[in-house]
């Protein structure tokens, strides 16, 4: 009798612990779900293939998706303010081909790289100004950015341009770390994630980004600078687009105006899978990194199985759906509590 009582009490204790935990960290739940899925994917693939979690594969996972990771950091800032940036894929293509063509015409890399970053940030600034000062919806403003970036990429060059510059070649040289290896492109991507996470959580600006996403009106009434913050997130996203253009050009050894078609959708998908709420106010840069790894792992598994790469997008689409439905449930539950 007493033993059943204890077990019953224990189980209610566990239940309350779980419910307080989920109640307190409700906004972390989607990110935990993403981590769980990532681990399940990696373990499942290792059990299925037997040779999946090799140092080579794990290293490639980071290097193949470095540009996506950088784009995801910028997109997280934008989505947390409840905006959206469709331009990132074409900004990446534009800055990539711009850099390649400048290098091909003999301009030193030390000038070319800042030019690429500034070009990306400039398109971001245009979008941000349209959104903030002219009340254009983020969707439409960044659509203009998408068209502009893609068109300018073709204005720079209609064909791909090879890059032989020693600095960019160095950026893709593999540095062995035991059995693993890493290239400067991967290090840059990781640094971008770290800086993004630090800015989001430990600076005034980062707190304001969350506040704007939570309630723009309240943020304004609190006297925080909403206008500057909203313009800045698009500039950051554009800057990340420029950096991603640099990474992709270094990684592939060429600038190509057709790069990154549809990448904006992949980026939005990985950010959502990583636990950022599209309605704004909640999200984590580190979560987005997990999302990128989920995406990359799915891609690797599919190429391991020798299946059509088109399955990647089908599976990512389904995963996106599941996450959005789960998010929807979480949001409506926390609203009920309020």
């Amino acid at each position, binding site marked *: 009798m007493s033993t059943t009582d204890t077990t019953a009490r224990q189980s209610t204790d566990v239940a309350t612990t779980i419910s307080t935990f989920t109640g307190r960290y409700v906004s972390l739940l989607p990110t935990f779900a993403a981590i769980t899925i990532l681990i399940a994917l990696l373990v499942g693939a290792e059990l299925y293939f037997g040779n999946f979690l090799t140092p080579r594969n794990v290293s490639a996972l980071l290097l193949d998706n470095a540009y996506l990771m950088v784009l995801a950091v910028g997109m997280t800032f934008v989505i947390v303010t409840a905006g959206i940036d469709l331009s990132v894929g074409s900004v990446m293509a534009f800055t990539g081909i711009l850099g390649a063509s400048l290098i091909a015409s003999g301009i030193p890399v030390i000038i070319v790289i800042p030019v690429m970053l500034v070009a990306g940030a400039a398109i971001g600034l245009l979008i941000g100004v349209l959104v903030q000062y002219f009340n254009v919806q983020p969707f439409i403003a960044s659509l203009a*950015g*998408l068209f502009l970036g*893609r068109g300018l990429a073709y204005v720079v060059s209609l064909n791909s341009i090879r890059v032989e510059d020693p600095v960019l070649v160095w950026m893709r040289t593999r540095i062995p770390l035991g059995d693993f290896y890493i290239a400067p492109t991967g290090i840059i991507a990781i640094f971008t994630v770290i800086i993004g996470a630090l800015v989001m959580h430990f600076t005034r600006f980062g707190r304001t980004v969350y506040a704007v996403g939570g309630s723009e009106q309240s943020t304004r009434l609190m006297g925080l600078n909403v206008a500057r913050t909203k313009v800045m997130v698009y500039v950051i996203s554009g800057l990340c687009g420029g950096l991603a253009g640099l990474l992709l050009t270094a990684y592939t050894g060429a600038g190509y105006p057709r790069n990154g078609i549809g990448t904006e959708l992949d980026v939005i998908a990985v950010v959502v899978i990583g636990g950022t709420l*599209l309605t704004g106010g909640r999200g984590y840069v580190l979560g987005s990194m997990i999302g990128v790894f989920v995406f990359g792992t799915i891609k690797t598994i599919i190429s391991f199985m020798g299946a*059509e790469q*088109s*399955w990647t997008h*089908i599976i990512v*689409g389904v995963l996106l759906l599941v996450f959005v439905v789960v998010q929807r449930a979480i949001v409506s539950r926390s609203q009920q509590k309020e």
Partner: protein
Amino acid sequence: MKIVKHRLFWPAAALVTLLIINTIANPNFARVTLQDGQLYGNPINILRESAPLMLVALGMTLVIATRGIDLSVGAIMAVSGAVALTILDASENPGGLGSVAVAVVVAVLVGLVLGVWNGFLVSVLGIQPIIATLVLMLAGRGVALLITGGFITTVNSAPYKFIATGYLVVLPVAFFIWVAAVVIVSVLERRTALGMLTEAVGINPEASRLAGVRSRGIIWTAYIASGVLAGIAGVIFASNTMAADANSAGYLIELYAILAVVLGGTSLMGGKFSIAGTVIGVMTVQALNSAILFLGVPPAQAPVFFAAVVIIVVLLQSPRVHSYGRSVGQLLGVGVKPTREDKKEVAA
């Protein structure tokens, strides 16, 4: 002055200006010739080639009126084109009218099913339209690639090719298809209460629900209509190229369709919509496109011009620019009274 106030005045003026500039730049632009009882020339091409965009934009108008957006139309086009050509390819007699009819009907039904799916996500599960349709936008092209097996399926079928390139009386068949679609949608929306209810849902979903409007069904219908129209657009697109290319079919068409709808004066905030405005918007996009080609700009660079158009249009619609315009007007002594709506927008 009254005509200037009409909501379609500016979109129509933009289109006419564009056509006049084209004609001045190259008088051959407006030349239409009659050969064997069929009209040829740039204006006729615009009418013919605008069919897929027109159908997609028509559905998009309804979706946008409910405060939604449908990003998946390009993917639906790719799927329906792939379905139609794969059925034709597998049939024993691709040139037969029967197999063409089956292919077209099945392809459009696939569009319908995908539209039902989008509508379900948005109206029943309450997911944001951008994300709900993003799911299909991502997955749809993958499905289309699986249907075609990753190849570009090409088929020879005279009756199927007729859909996009044939002529009826003196004008292209594709032109008649989109005119029919526009007429049917206009009659359904404007001769019944459906259009008004759609606008009600778009203007204030909560208030219209309290007033007894079944918003769920209306939103769902809009996505279904968009899916069906995208399905037909996919059939026409595939018929034009006679090749099911899962990557390029309907590529970026969702964005051009949204642009056309916005150019036509329908606000992305939902509510009031204008089908005539969308028709003008599509014509403008199509005329701009052929003008760019006509001027010898590589087609790949065309997006720069569209970016400029998008920026100009959104700036013209912006309340801040309106208030600048008024202060300039007051300086010049042209008294333009600010309307109540403008005041409200500036205050906000």
